[in-house]
C-alpha cells in the first residue's frame, strides 16, 4: 500500500524528521487560512496517490494567503493523471540551496534493505540512475548488524554530501531506517531532501510503501488502507479478500494462481482481446470465494465476457463449479462466461456445469479464444 505525501510527512514528523510547517486544506478558504498562519511564501500541493504531480500542474507556489486561495482553487477539483484532487497540502516554501535524494527500500536480488543517496535529488531519480549511475550511491544492510553511523558516513562521502551535513543526515537516515523497521515500510523515500539557506536539511516531499503482508501488525496503517483504496472495484475486491487489479480491457478474468492468471491475460492478448482485470482466487478456493470473484468481475461495466480458467491442484474443480452455480442462482448474468476446468475433479466440475448457460472450453487456448470472440460479438 502506498502512502501519499501528507501521510508520509505525518509519520516523518512523528519520528523526528524535519518537514516544513503545513497542513491539509480541502477548500480555497482553508488554504488561505493556512497560508496566513504560516506566513510568507507557501507551496500548494495536490494530494493524489501518483507521481508526476508537478508536471501535471498539481504543485504551485503562492506568495501569500490570497495567492494561496487562488492556486488552491485551481488545483482542487483538477484531475491529476486520472485522480481527482480533493485535498491540497499548504506548506511553507523555504529557500532551497541544494536538493538531495534519500531512500531506503528492499532489494529483492540482494535480499536486503538498501539505502540510496544522491546529491542530484529533486528530479526523477530513476532517470539520474540510468544516465549518471555514479551520482546515485547505494548501501546494502546486513539485517543482523543494522544501520551504523559509518554506513551513513560512507554513503555521504561517496555521494559528495559536505561533511557539515553528516550529523543531520545521519539523524534522518537513522529515522527512515527506524520507520522501515517499525512500520514495515518497503519504501521510505525523501525526494527532495532539501538543504535550506539556513543550513537545515528538510524533507520537502515523501513517499512511503507499506508491506501489505505486514498490515496485520500495523493496525493504524491498515485503517488508512481501508479509507483510501484505488479503483472502487479494487476496494470492493479487497473487502472480499480477493487479489484483484482493474485493467483497461473488456474480458473479465478469474483464475487460480498469479502465474496462471498472468498467463491467461497474455493468452487473451494473443487471441486478439484485452483483459478487463486480473483476479486470482488463490489455492484451495472454496465455492464462496469463487462466487465473490464472479460477482466482482460481473459488476464491472467494462466487462463484455468472462473467462474462468482453473487448474485444480489443491483447488477442486467441483468446488469452483458449485461457486459458479451459486452466482447463477442469485444474479442475472448479463455476459457470456467461458469456463475451463482442468486437474483435480475436473470431470465432476464439468458435469455440474452441464446444461447451464456457461460456455465450456477444453483447453487454455480454446478458452481464451472463445472468451475474446464472445466479447467482440
Amino acid at each position, binding site marked *: 500500500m502506498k502512502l501519499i505525501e501528507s501521510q508520509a510527512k505525518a509519520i516523518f514528523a512523528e519520528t523526528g524528521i524535519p518537514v516544513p510547517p503545513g497542513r491539509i486544506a480541502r477548500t480555497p478558504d482553508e488554504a488561505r487560512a493556512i497560508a496566513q498562519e504560516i506566513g510568507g511564501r507557501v507551496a500548494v500541493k495536490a494530494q493524489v496517490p501518483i507521481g508526476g504531480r508537478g508536471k501535471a500542474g498539481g504543485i504551485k507556489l503562492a506568495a501569500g494567503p490570497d495567492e494561496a486561495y487562488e492556486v488552491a482553487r485551481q488545483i482542487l477539483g483538477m484531475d491529476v493523471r486520472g485522480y481527482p484532487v480533493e485535498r491540497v497540502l499548504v506548506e511553507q516554501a523555504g529557500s532551497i540551496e541544494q536538493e538531495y535524494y534519500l531512500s531506503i527500500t*528492499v532489494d*529483492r*536480488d540482494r*535480499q*536486503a*534493505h538498501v539505502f540510496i543517496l544522491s546529491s542530484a535529488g529533486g528530479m526523477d531519480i*530513476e532517470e539520474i540512475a*540510468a544516465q549518471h549511475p555514479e551520482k546515485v550511491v547505494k548501501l546494502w544492510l*546486513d*539485517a*543482523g548488524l543494522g544501520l551504523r553511523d559509518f554506513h551513513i558516513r560512507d554513503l555521504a562521502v561517496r555521494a559528495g554530501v559536505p561533511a557539515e551535513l553528516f550529523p543531520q543526515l545521519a539523524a534522518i537516515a537513522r529515522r527512515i531506517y527506524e520507520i*522501515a*523497521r517499525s512500520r*514495515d515500510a*518497503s519504501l521510505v523515500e525523501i525526494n527532495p531532501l532539501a538543504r535550506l539557506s539556513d543550513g537545515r536539511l528538510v524533507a520537502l516531499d515523501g513517499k512511503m510503501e507499506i*508491506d*501489505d*503482508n*505486514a498490515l*496485520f*501488525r500495523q493496525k493504524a496503517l491498515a485503517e488508512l488502507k481501508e479509507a483510501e483504496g484505488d479503483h472502487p472495484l479494487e476496494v470492493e475486491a479487497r473487502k472480499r479478500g480477493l*487479489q484483484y*487489479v482493474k*485493467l*483497461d480491457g473488456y474480458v473479465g478474468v478469474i*483464475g*487460480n*494462481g*498469479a*502465474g*496462471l*492468471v*498472468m*498467463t491467461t*491475460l*497474455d*493468452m*487473451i*492478448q*494473443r487471441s486478439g482481446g484485452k*483483459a478487463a482485470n*486480473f483476479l*486470482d482466487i488463490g*489455492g484451495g478456493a472454496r465455492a464462496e470465494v469463487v462466487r465473490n470473484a464472479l460477482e466482482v468481475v460481473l459488476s464491472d461495466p467494462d466487462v463484455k465476457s468472462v473467462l474462468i480458467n482453473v*487448474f*485444480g*491442484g*489443491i*483447488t477442486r474443480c467441483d468446488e469452483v463449479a458449485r461457486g459458479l452455480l451459486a452466482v447463477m442462482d442469485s444474479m442475472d448474468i448479463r455476459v457470456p462466461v467461458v469456463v475451463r476446468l*482442468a*486437474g*483435480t475433479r475436473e470431470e465432476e466440475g464439468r458435469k455440474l456445469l452441464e446444461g447451464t448457460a456457461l460456455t465450456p472450453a477444453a483447453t*487454455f*487456448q480454446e478458452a481464451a479464444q472463445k472468451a475474446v470472440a464472445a466479447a467482440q460479438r
Partner: protein
Amino acid sequence: MSILVDGNTRLIVQGITGREGQFHTSQMMAYGTNVVAGVTPGKGGQEVLGVPVFDTVREAVRATDANTSIIFVPAPFAAEAVLEAAEAGVDLIVCITEGIPVQDMIETVQYVRRQGVRLIGPNCPGLISAGQALVGILPGRIFTPGPVGLVSRSGTLTYEVVNELSSRGIGQSTCVGIGGDPIIGTRFVDVLRMFEADPDTEVVVMIGEIGGSDEEEAAEYIKEMRTPVVSFISGRTAPPGKRMGHAGAIISGGRGTAQSKVEALEAAGVPVAATITEIADKVAEALGR
C-alpha cells in the same frame, strides 16, 4: 534420480495440527513421503495421522533424525518457524506459508544462508521428486518420473506445464516451486546448479514471471550449463506498475520486464516458449523426441 528430496527424506511437518498442515501431511504420506514427525508448540505428545507431535523442532530432530522440514505455520509466526528449523539442524526447509512480511524474510533468509541451510519458499508449493517424495502441496497425481527438471515461481502454471508434459509421455525428475515473494530462500540459479549436477535431469524447464531480475541472472548461468533449458515468462502483457497478486510481479523501470527477461534468455541461447503447449514442444525437441 532427483534433487533435494527423495526416498531418504525424513520429513518434519511444522504446523501439523492445523487444517492445512494435516490435510497436506495426509497427501504427502499417501504419495510415499516419509513423514517422521510433526511440531506444534504446546501439542507435544499428541499424534496426527500416526505421526508423533513435538513441542519443538529440536526435540523432533533428536527423536526422529529428520533432515527436512515443511512449514504450514500462519504468516505471523512462519519466519520464526524457519529460524527454529534452521537452528535445530535440518538440511532443507520448505516454507509453504504465504503472506509473510518482507522484513521478516530479509532477516530469515540472511540468517538461514549464513547457517548453510537450504530454504525453499516462502509462498511456494514446495517440491516433488516424481515417484519418490512429495514435500509440498503439489498435486502428486499429475507427475510422472522422467528426465525433465522444472523450476518455477508460479504454482498453478507449473501444474499446467507438468500436466501437458505427462500427457505427452514426458516424465519429470524433480519439480521445484521457488515461490513468488520478493524475498525467497532459493532462486532460479541455485536450482539450475543442482539440476546441472543431476545426471538424470536431461532438460530443465524454467518458468519465470515479470519482476525482479532472477531470470536475467539465471540466463547468465545458463550460458555455462551443459543441460539444455527451456523457458517461459508469464506476465508479458501486464501493465507497468500494477501488482499482479505476487508481490514479485511489479515492474519498475526497465528492469524486471518480460521483455528484458526474454531478451536475456534468448541471448543465452534459451528457447522461450510463448504458450504452454509450446513449452512441451520445445522440451520434446530438446529430448530429441
